[in-house]
């Protein structure tokens, strides 16, 4: 049982998830994927409070001091891991997107509490970054010769900066080239749309976006 984060497995799992759920455009919708994942019940805090007959404030009050964006509980029942994911519907979209992607990571990676918390947290967050900002999409944008913008990457302000930092930190983590190629092909029609109507793209000089390009220029799969 490894006690260190397996980042390659996390990145690969993110890419496999995008393939399996036929994600062909950005932004990626982690909540849709989570709701389609077997063995998982997904509810907002409000829905959960209504289901169990207490008010939302009471539910949140029980977990005072913990993540207020989303959390996952797990139990093995009849030999299968069962998950309940609760999330805060009132979050700004970019925070919700990140939080849900992180919880999805716990589930896709089969976390069951048997490994240290820091390890599984790092893996789940790594999964989230690779799910929300797939390198093959950035590469496809570059190869199409269109600008890297928030529209083309489908990343919301406040989200892409962290994704880029995450990618830079994990520069040496590689996903199988065949998997990357599949994803590039999957995203190709989406990217082509922008190539056909690049006039709608608002190019700004946000340094984080510019850095995506230079990062990928120096990244070899």
């Amino acid at each position: 049982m490894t006690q260190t984060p397996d980042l390659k497995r996390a990145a690969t799992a993110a890419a496999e998830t995008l393939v399996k759920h036929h994600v062909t455009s950005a932004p990626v919708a982690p909540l849709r994927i989570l709701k389609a994942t077997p063995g998982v019940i997904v509810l907002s805090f409000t829905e959960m409070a209504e289901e169990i007959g207490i008010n939302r404030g009471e539910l949140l009050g029980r977990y005072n001091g913990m993540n207020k964006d989303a959390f996952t509980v797990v139990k093995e029942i009849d030999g299968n891991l069962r998950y309940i994911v609760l999330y805060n519907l009132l979050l700004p979209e970019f925070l919700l997107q990140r939080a849900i992607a992180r919880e999805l990571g716990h589930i896709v990676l089969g976390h069951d509490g048997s490994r240290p918390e820091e390890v599984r947290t790092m893996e789940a967050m790594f999964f989230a970054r690779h799910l929300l900002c797939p390198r093959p999409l950035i590469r496809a944008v570059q190869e199409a010769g269109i600008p890297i913008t928030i529209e083309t990457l489908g990343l919301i302000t406040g989200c892409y900066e962290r994704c880029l930092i995450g990618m830079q930190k994990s520069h040496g983590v590689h996903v199988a080239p065949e998997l990357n190629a599949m994803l590039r092909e999957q995203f190709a029609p989406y990217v082509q749309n922008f190539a056909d109507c690049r006039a709608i793209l608002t190019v700004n000089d946000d340094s984080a976006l510019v850095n995506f390009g230079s990062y990928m220029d120096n990244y070899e799969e």
Partner: protein
Amino acid sequence: MSVGANIKKRRKQLGINAETLAHKLGVSPTTIYRYENGGIEKVDSAKLVQIADALNTTPGFLMGWEESENEPSKQNNIEQALSSGKKADKWIMLTKWFGNMEMPEFDMWFNAISANHPETERNDDDDTNP
């Protein structure tokens, strides 16, 4: 032992009176006595969780399912998180918090919500969980 008797036993163990417990729960002392003496026979799950919290124990103990009345301490949780090989035989928190915090209330809640929210069925070719 009934739920009411367990509430009373735990309250006495902690040395707190019914008024103090009532104040913590935002109910009247009479309500506490009614819980303890069976005047209110059915304690709903949400209220049971509140009472367990106020008495620093678990709903499972009050229901008579668990022998230990003490809630696991955060230190124990951290130690548990650092141990390896333990499967999730109880509901535990995965998201970063204080280690593998046990969430016994989800036993009751899971039953309540699973009826209304059937999970996506597993397919034979499903490989979501490696």
